[in-house]
């Protein structure tokens, strides 16, 4: 058996990979060495066998489809614009819708009067609630002043003043009794009325919310048509 270096040379010689000088040297050795000649014959026969191996025809076509390679139909240049519009409209719609839906639970209603959003009703309601509270101390204080009047040594002006108070006191005492039903009768519709006003006048106008929704849906529809059109053209 020859060493591997010689066999490597024989294999390369078989394929015509040796230069002229190397080939000539090897050929002279092959002529003089029968074993080397035998190895060359075997290598040649092996190569010949491999080359005679029948080439199989591909059992099917391996042509690729666009889906196989992940290609997508070319979309119009305006497509990203609509995608952006859809995204913005959707975000704005969700945001405005959420703000409007959550506004009754937060201080939007109380803050509104300061900014003039339906503040009239709210302000009146507060005044109505505070009105009796302001009158009550006066009513309580009036008898006290009456009681103190005899004990005081003040002049006629003080007496006149206390007399005026005395005159005023019955009115004040009567007034709450008469005013109470009136006040409750008036305050009940007034208390109920402001609340719907606050709900109606939402932080974001309803028209805007609807507009965002419509823009979003329309843009999405245009995108869908663009994709369908591009796909049908591509086919």
């Amino acid at each position, binding site marked *: 058996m020859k060493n591997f270096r010689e066999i490597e040379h024989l294999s390369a010689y078989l394929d015509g990979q040796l230069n002229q000088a190397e080939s000539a040297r090897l050929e002279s050795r092959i002529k003089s060495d029968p074993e080397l000649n035998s190895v060359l014959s075997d290598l040649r026969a092996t190569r010949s066998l*491999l080359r005679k191996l029948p080439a199989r025809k591909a*059992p099917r076509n391996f042509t690729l489809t666009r889906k196989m390679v992940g290609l997508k139909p070319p979309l119009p240049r305006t497509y990203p614009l609509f995608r952006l519009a859809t995204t913005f409209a959707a975000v704005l719609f969700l945001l405005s819708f959420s703000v409007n839906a959550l506004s009754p639970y937060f201080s939007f209603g109380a803050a509104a009067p300061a900014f003039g959003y339906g503040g009239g009703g709210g302000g009146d309601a507060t005044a109505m609630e505070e009105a009796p509270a302001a009158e009550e101390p006066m009513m309580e204080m009036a008898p006290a002043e009456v009681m103190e009047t005899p004990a005081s040594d003040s002049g006629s002006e003080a007496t006149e003043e206390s007399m005026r108070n005395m005159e005023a006191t019955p009115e004040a005492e009567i007034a709450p009794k008469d005013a109470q039903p009136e006040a409750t009768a008036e305050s009940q519709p007034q208390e109920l009325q402001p609340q719907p006003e606050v709900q109606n006048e939402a932080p974001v106008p309803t028209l805007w919310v609807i507009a965002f929704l419509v823009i979003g849906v329309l843009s999405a529809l245009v995108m869908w048509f663009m994709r369908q059109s591009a796909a049908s053209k591509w086919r």
Partner: protein
Amino acid sequence: MDETALITSAQSGDLDAFNTLILHYQDSVFNTALRILGDEDQAQDAAQEAFISAFKSITSFRGGSFKAWILRTVTNACYDELRRQKRRPTTPLEPETSDGEEMDSPKWLADSSMTPDQKAEADELEHAIQHCLDALPTEFRTVVVLADIQGMDYTEVATASRVPLGTIKSRLARARLRLRECLRSFEELLPASFRLESESTR
């Protein structure tokens, strides 16, 4: 077929141009995969994977032999498949003796469904060669398949297998030696015209 123009078109994303190239090279690609893997179904999968991978990376083709480039892709696909097999070995479908040992006799190589003698001889030869190819280490098998079965020159084989030219010479010589030894054991099976001794002319 203007191969350069088709390659240029394919590089700019023209799938139809690439499919024309596929139709031209699919037999070579499939045969290479078949000889390296030794299984037709796996060879089909490897060939398909190779073409998909080739299309995706065709912009990396910088000229030279397109055949060598595409065969390198299928060689890589075959290596991936062989690595997968190594991780998840499967049971061979070769017949076993009653003792449960794998039959390595020439009997199993014969295909009983083939009746014409010549066809049977050719099939037996093919089975014998494939059996010997399968026994080679993968890197030797790849080189011998590309050089002797696909008829590529050393430079193309070096390109396709990403191995230096000197290594190609060495691997090819070793592969041929081992094949010669292996085929000797099938000499009785081989038809007379294919016997090693009968080959003497270049």
